[in-house]
């Protein structure tokens, strides 16, 4: 340890409305080695055993190889069903966000039950500070992907659906922890030039910048729109990786830090 300075030399940098001067801000990465992964709701969980078990096998194998992993779960069709019922009743977005948080929680608990014998542990927002313990003990922490905004979720223009759902929550977990990538395990290889289910000539896009994706102004998107927006101004997460959990080996590659699927990067 260096010697202590006298009190007059010390003191935090001056703060304004937006924070401290960029030159004074030296961000600390909290747990940068963590692989923060989302397990898709509609794309994986709702497919049941056939889709989920092989993905969990790859995750457990990676965890046994000492790769630290945090899993966040998506919602899926039950979330869509409750959003649909609540929208018809004209309930505010904040209530929908609260309703939408229960389904990913169920999914997280299902994954925990399946992985318990390999160290799977269900955690809540308040357990986030215990992540170092879980990692050290060789556990696999599993949580809802939904961020805790709940009733405080802002309304979007022309939509009642909460804009920050499980893609956003997983991204924000990775950003807080100081990770370079957030990983999304879905049922597609990532982005294509067109919908591959409809157009056989559609080709796969291995890398694309967030800016390019925004400029395309697609009517549909593989990931929540806010995530692309956050990516353009995040301090740590510079890449989103979307991999196909239905293809053996893809999840392992992603967990090893290799390029697979589609990478959306910040410029």
């Amino acid at each position: 340890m260096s010697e202590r300075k006298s009190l007059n030399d010390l003191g935090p940098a001056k703060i304004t409305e937006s924070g401290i001067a960029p030159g004074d801000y030296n961000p600390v990465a909290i747990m940068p080695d963590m692989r923060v992964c989302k397990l898709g709701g509609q794309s994986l969980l709702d497919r049941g055993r056939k889709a989920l078990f092989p993905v969990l096998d790859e995750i457990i194998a990676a965890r046994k190889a000492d790769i630290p992993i945090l899993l966040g779960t998506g919602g899926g069709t039950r979330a869509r069903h409750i959003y649909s019922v609540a929208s018809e009743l004209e309930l505010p977005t904040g209530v929908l966000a609260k309703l939408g948080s229960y389904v990913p929680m169920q999914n997280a608990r299902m994954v925990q039950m399946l992985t318990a014998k390999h160290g799977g542990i269900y955690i809540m927002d308040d357990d986030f500070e215990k992540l170092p313990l879980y990692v050290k003990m060789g556990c696999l922490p599993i949580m809802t992907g939904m961020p805790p905004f709940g009733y405080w979720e802002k309304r979007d223009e022309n939509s009642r659906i909460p804009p920050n759902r499980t893609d956003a929550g997983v991204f924000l977990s990775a950003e807080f922890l100081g990770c370079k990538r957030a990983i999304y395990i879905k049922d597609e290889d990532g982005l294509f030039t067109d919908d591959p289910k409809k157009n056989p000539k559609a080709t796969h896009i291995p890398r694309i910048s967030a800016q390019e994706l925004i400029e395309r102004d697609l009517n549909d998107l593989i990931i929540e729109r806010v995530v692309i927006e956050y990516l353009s101004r995040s301090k740590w997460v510079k890449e989103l990786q979307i991999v196909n959990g239905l293809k053996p080996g893809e999840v392992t590659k992603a967990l090893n830090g290799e390029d697979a699927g589609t990478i959306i990067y910040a410029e």
Partner: protein
Amino acid sequence: MSNKLVTGDGRTHIQSKLMRESLQDRSVINDTDSIKDRRILPDITVISIGGQSIFDRGKAAILPLADELAALHKSKKHPMLIAVGGGTRVRHTAAVALDLGLPTGGVAQLVGAMEELNAVILNSLLAQHGSITMPRDHFWDLPLYMNSGILPIVISVPPYHFWEPPAEVGQMPAHRSDFGVYQQAEVLGTTHVIYVKDEDGLYDKDPKEFDDAKLYEKITLEELLANPPETNMIDWAVFKSWKTGKNIKKIQIINGLKPGLLTKALAGEDVGTVITKD
């Protein structure tokens, strides 16, 4: 609506309008909207008591306001929810946390504790008149409190915690106390929010620095968004969100150092700055 389970594409769906659809698809999500949001507890007025502007001034500012709140509560005319800010301790927390290099989400996680202190302070003064500190998301308990003559006090900052999105400029969380109060009122379906500060209302620039600062008496949200003031007494996130909000019709900013203004504002009088939205 239906209760049918649908299979055939490898997944099991519940039949609904959103079944199988991408929730990123604009045409799908636009269909969930309508011109209004249901009002859950429309009769409550949410009152924000500023941290720096009121609590940090100590006894001289707090006691008269507490007396006025007690009298208003006793009159039983206005169901109220009181939200308190944190003030200079929040600013200090952020200053130290950012100097240490903690992320935006880390700052957001920390600041709520400093508001809890002001909730306890205010509750110590008002408990004998029936106040209670309420965890902010327990608002399903509000009908119980309102019917039993209890005055709930909550903290203001929204529970974004570690998940606060990265800031657009700098490192400070964008979702702060003023926004939290606004959003709580909006989701409850109330129509009127009152921000109690230490100035006569909203000015075009900081009245503490500029003698020629001009007070807005009545202004619409559209006008305000078109001509944002140089310095903001209220977090800008409030007005940005209010633009898409459906429930709140009036945001009023009053001087809590002048006794009687809160009573007038609750009676519907145009004191301080009145911002309206059509």
